């Protein structure tokens, strides 16, 4: 029997506004095992068929002596009645088993097709190959293609603006366009709805024309990355995952920018509140669910220093000690500086290289006294989610990380360790989770919850390009989504929450909060002692 398995794969399961894929509520099947079982059921059906033939022969032969002993013949027929019954006899059961065997074979084929995800794989390979070939055309070829695409976009844009202007003219065409773009048509699904949203609504450009959604970015990025690799001078071999490859190159380039930061120049220090701080520090409360975890992450953004990581110690009534680690997302979009939540860490995490953010988290956990057997939940937003996944993967022999919660994080190419339950939240309109160019795999311990924020992504294209997170990527939106997910009855969510409850308990634990900040320092400037919040 083959070890090949398939999980989930049959598409998202709608659950209200939430679409949940993967996790323990999905399907796991050993495809070869299903085929073997189908063969056994078919053999069982064959046995019933043979038995039915023997029964007919036996009764026929017995009937030859019925005249000599009619009473025993009658009793024999009565005893054999269940075997010859038209509703529950051998023939009927034989047919039923044969149908079951056929269904099982069909199920195996369906799972095999889902596992292969032929369309997705082909599109990915084609876009990577086409992108690489495009890149290899060189600057002239790229310029020609860019001009072609630019002309097409300009033509389409002017056509769109023209159509939207025509709506206001008292002509049959204008009337028709007004009807097509009416509110009721804009609410339609499918092609008609898309066209209606393009020509309807206020303004010169459609409201839907915001930043690209995560799914679009996820689909387009492998091809774009392959184009970049193909356009590099010399013969740079295209690796299996061009997005990782480009991220790795970007990390190398960023690391080389001044001031260069050696790994041994990382310092992780506890954060203490400055005397006379303007706002008194609030008393930490025990998190109870996914939304509370993300609120903990949110509070890291307000801690005064980039790269601050929160470590909550939960002392439960029964004597157990568990931990919550909150990791914020990227806070610096420029060249590498002292803060670890920057672009360099993002590229390192995307490419699978060692990074300073997850190193800071590990050192913070060690400093806080996280024991090797004490259950830990890691929660992270955006880049923080990637760091959480990396920490869970690299500390399997150091800590007992049982649960990871990520919000808007590109974790599709990051391995999930056995025994760790992961919940990944993704807003449709958020483009950040698509930056790895890979969908989250369907695994029994990785549940992905996708939902829509109901807007066009918030801030405009320019803001996205300048590095401002869109509204759809903002953590407060993910806190709201986490609130929707909490307590959901879907089996995958339930399994995740069982794991989470093992850490959070009933919400009555005594909480001790510690914060640590990871700072890159150059050699010779390393010093011990705590960092000061707000300083």
């Amino acid at each position, binding site marked *: 029997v083959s070890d090949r398995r398939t999980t989930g794969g049959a598409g998202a399961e709608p659950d209200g506004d939430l679409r949940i894929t993967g996790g323990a509520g999905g399907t796991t099947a050993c495809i070869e095992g299903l085929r073997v079982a189908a063969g056994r059921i078919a053999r*069982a059906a064959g046995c019933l068929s*043979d038995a039915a033939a023997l029964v007919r022969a036996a009764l026929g032969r*017995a009937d030859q*002596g019925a005249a000599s002993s009619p009473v025993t013949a009658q009793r024999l027929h009565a*005893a054999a009645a269940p075997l010859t019954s038209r509703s529950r006899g051998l023939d009927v059961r034989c047919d039923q088993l044969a149908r079951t065997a056929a269904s099982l074979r069909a199920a195996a084929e369906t799972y095999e097709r889902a596992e292969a995800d032929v369309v997705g794989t082909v599109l990915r390979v084609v876009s990577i190959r086409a992108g690489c070939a495009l890149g290899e055309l060189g600057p002239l070829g790229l310029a020609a293609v860019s001009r072609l695409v630019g002309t097409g976009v300009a033509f389409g844009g002017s056509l769109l603006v023209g159509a939207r202007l025509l709506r206001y003219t008292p002509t049959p065409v204008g009337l028709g366009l007004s009807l097509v773009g009416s509110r009721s048509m804009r609410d339609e699904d499918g092609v008609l709805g898309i066209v209606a949203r393009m020509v309807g609504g206020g303004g010169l450009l459609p409201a839907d024309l915001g930043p690209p959604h995560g799914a679009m970015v996820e689909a387009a990025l492998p091809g774009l990355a392959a184009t970049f690799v193909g356009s590099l001078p010399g013969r740079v071999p295209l690796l299996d995952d061009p997005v990782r490859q480009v991220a790795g190159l970007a990390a190398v380039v960023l690391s080389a920018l001044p001031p260069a930061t050696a790994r041994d120049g990382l310092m992780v220090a506890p954060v203490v509140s400055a005397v006379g701080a303007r706002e008194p520090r609030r008393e930490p409360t025990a998190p109870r669910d996914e939304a509370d975890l993300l609120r903990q992450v949110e509070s890291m953004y307000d801690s005064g220093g980039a790269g601050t990581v929160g470590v909550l110690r939960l002392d439960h009534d029964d004597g157990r000690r568990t931990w919550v680690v909150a990791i914020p997302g990227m806070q610096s979009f420029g060249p590498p500086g002292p803060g670890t939540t920057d672009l360099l860490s993002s590229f390192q995490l995307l490419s699978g290289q060692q990074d300073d953010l997850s190193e800071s988290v590990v050192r913070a956990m060690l400093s806080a006294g996280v024991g090797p057997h004490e259950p830990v939940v890691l929660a992270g937003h955006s880049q923080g989610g990637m760091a959480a996944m990396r920490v869970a993967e690299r500390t399997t022999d150091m800590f007992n990380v049982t649960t990871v919660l990520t919000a808007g994080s590109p974790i599709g190419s990051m391995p999930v360790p056995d025994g760790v339950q992961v919940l990944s939240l993704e807003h449709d309109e958020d483009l950040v989770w698509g930056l790895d160019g890979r969908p989250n795999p369907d695994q029994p311990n990785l549940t992905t919850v996708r939902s829509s924020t109901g807007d066009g992504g918030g801030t405009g294209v320019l803001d996205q390009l300048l590095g401002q997170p869109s509204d759809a990527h903002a953590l407060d939106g993910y806190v709201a989504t986490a609130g929707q997910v909490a307590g959901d009855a879907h089996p995958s969510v339930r399994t995740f929450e069982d794991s989470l409850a093992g850490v959070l308990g009933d919400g009555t634990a005594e909480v001790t909060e510690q914060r640590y900040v990871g700072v890159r320092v150059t050699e010779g400037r390393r010093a011990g002692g705590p960092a000061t919040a707000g300083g």
Partner: protein
Amino acid sequence: VDGDTSGLWRGVVEHLGTARAQLAAAGAVEWTGQAALAYDELLEAGLGAVAVLRHAAEDSWSAATRHDSAVRLARAAP
């Protein structure tokens, strides 16, 4: 003996025993999810049905043995 059906009924019982064993083995498959639950129920119903059929076959074998003896006696009588 002309009309002796004991061997045929033994064959019926043996076939049903083999069918039951095959169905029981078909249950040992790595499969989770809603479809797997439905499959388990279907298989359990199939095993139950085969058990009923086998019981009927054993009863029929006994009845056939008695019938064969009765026919033999009737034919042997002057």
